[in-house]
């Protein structure tokens, strides 16, 4: 690969969102902006080979894409689109220059990659908040974010979520139409709505990571590329909203989880539980960075939110030298706090799993099993494969093999991921008399 191609790929990965988000403002239309941004990347190849890679590739691409958008609009001015995207006019920044008017500024004039000064929010935030608007279906939010913010081509987005390409293309088109038709504004929410809307963004990033972390089906357990996209997004959100502890908490959580990725499967691709993982294979750089972010998220506000608390739980595991040395009292305590801010049956199930490692009578497998059996009645957990898996594990540890086998079988029927299926089948064979 030559230098120009490498620079271009790098610019696509790091600056796509920046280029597209700034172009949307000129184009007033997501599709047109996407086309122009793509054309800018195409034209960059020849131009950079001829003139060399510019000092600021992001600024070069943005300028090119915005020029293309202006040209397209001039050509189409007679058949001006009926429903332009609702782009808010930009307040002038401290220097009196509106952020939307840097089109013809020289390369250096465009603060590529960073937060815009003077209180003008970065365009990437507008793009992200628009893609993650709660008026869009959750699966559409995730798809749009991958497509528009990460610049992942539609076939790859379809592949990531294991749906046919045509289905994914239709899903993305429908979401774009709703943005335009229902007039979802292209803007960063006001301070009053920010916590709720940010939660929506963080949920999308977390879902993206989880989808990669345990691929819902297929042979591989982890899809690293999806996880890395999610980590990049979380990093961007922290950079753009440095005062939001929950964003920091999410990034901490993702880094601490991502740090374990090489230890989660053995060389044959089989699942390795936290209990059996070789902790020397955890990425020490990600662990220390994750712990630092988690500590910041926990101490920043008056009451930590759900991402900060989840990160704290991951942090207790990361800090334990061995599984046996895990501070389960802290883990259970953090789950209690998490349940107080986020009443989720999945959290309650995880808490029960941790409870099994505390001494009886308050803890231990017996006490945990009682909690899990109560949770089994919750309709929100119907069909959730980790519930029978957790039951099976507790029954196995209590020596109740027949019941454990039945629970492993139930869990096997519910999971689609091959690595997980192989793990459960192994456990099932071991408890069968």
């Amino acid at each position, binding site marked *: 690969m030559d230098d120009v191609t490498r620079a271009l790929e790098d610019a696509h990965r790091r600056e796509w969102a920046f280029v597209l988000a700034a172009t949307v403002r000129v184009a007033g239309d997501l599709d047109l902006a996407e086309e122009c941004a793509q054309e800018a990347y195409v034209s960059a190849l020849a131009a950079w080979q001829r003139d060399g890679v510019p000092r600021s590739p992001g600024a070069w691409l943005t300028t090119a894409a915005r020029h293309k958008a202006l040209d397209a609009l001039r050509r189409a001015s007679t058949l001006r689109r009926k429903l332009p995207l609702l782009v808010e006019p930009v307040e002038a920044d401290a220097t009196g220059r509106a952020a939307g008017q840097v089109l013809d500024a020289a390369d250096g004039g465009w603060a590529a990659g960073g937060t815009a000064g003077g209180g003008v929010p970065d365009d990437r935030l507008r793009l992200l908040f628009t893609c993650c608007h709660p*008026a869009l279906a959750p699966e559409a939010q995730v798809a749009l974010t991958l497509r528009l913010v990460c610049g992942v081509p539609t076939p790859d987005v379809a592949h990531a979520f294991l749906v046919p390409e045509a289905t994914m293309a239709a899903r993305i088109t429908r979401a774009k139409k709703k943005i335009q038709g229902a007039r*979802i504004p292209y803007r960063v929410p006001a301070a009053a709505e920010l916590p709720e809307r940010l939660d929506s963004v963080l949920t999308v990033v977390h879902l993206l990571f989880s989808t990669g972390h345990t691929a819902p089906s297929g042979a591989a357990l982890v899809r690293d590329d999806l996880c890395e996209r999610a980590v990049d997004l979380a990093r961007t959100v922290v950079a753009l909203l440095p005062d939001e502890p929950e964003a920091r908490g999410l990034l901490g959580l993702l880094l601490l989880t991502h740090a374990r990725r090489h230890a989660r499967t053995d060389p044959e691709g089989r699942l390795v539980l936290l209990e059996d993982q070789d902790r020397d294979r955890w990425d020490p750089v990600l662990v220390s960075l994750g712990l630092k972010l988690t500590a910041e998220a926990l101490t920043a506000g008056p009451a930590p939110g759900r991402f900060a608390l989840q990160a704290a739980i991951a942090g207790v595991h990361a800090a334990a030298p061995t599984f046996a040395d895990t501070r389960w009292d802290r883990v259970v305590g953090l789950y209690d706090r998490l349940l107080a801010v986020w009443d989720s049956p999945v959290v309650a199930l995880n808490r029960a799993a941790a409870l099994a490692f505390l001494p009886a009578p308050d803890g231990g497998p017996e006490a945990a099993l009682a909690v899990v059996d109560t949770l089994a009645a919750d309709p929100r957990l119907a069909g959730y494969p980790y519930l029978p898996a957790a039951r099976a594990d507790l029954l196995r540890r209590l020596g109740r093999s027949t019941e454990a086998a039945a629970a492993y079988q139930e869990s096997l029927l519910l999971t689609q991921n091959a690595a997980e299926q192989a793990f459960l089948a192994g456990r099932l064979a071991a408890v069968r008399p």
Partner: protein
Amino acid sequence: MAKYSILIYGDEAYYASLTPEGVAAVMDAHGAFAKAVGELGGQLLGGEELDSVSTATSVRGGAVTDGPFVETKETLGGFYLVEARDLDHAIEIAKLCPAPTGGIEVRPVVDHS
């Protein structure tokens, strides 16, 4: 500004069971909503309360039948037409609309001008 319809869905049985004081309280809540729309920078263009679904008649391909077009537990009980800046603004307005049972559906109105 764009037009949005605010569709109020709810359980008719609830409204039927209200005491006169309860009915007055609902009417007051709608009066307060009408005022709040303007205070939020929107504009109330119209709105009506619909009579019970038991009075509904459906016409499908010329065939006339008794009852609503779609049978649901929560029925469309009334609507407003408002003018708002964008969907966020319309949602902000919709959140203030009384819907003690059920909820609100926000639908943009197609501009044919």
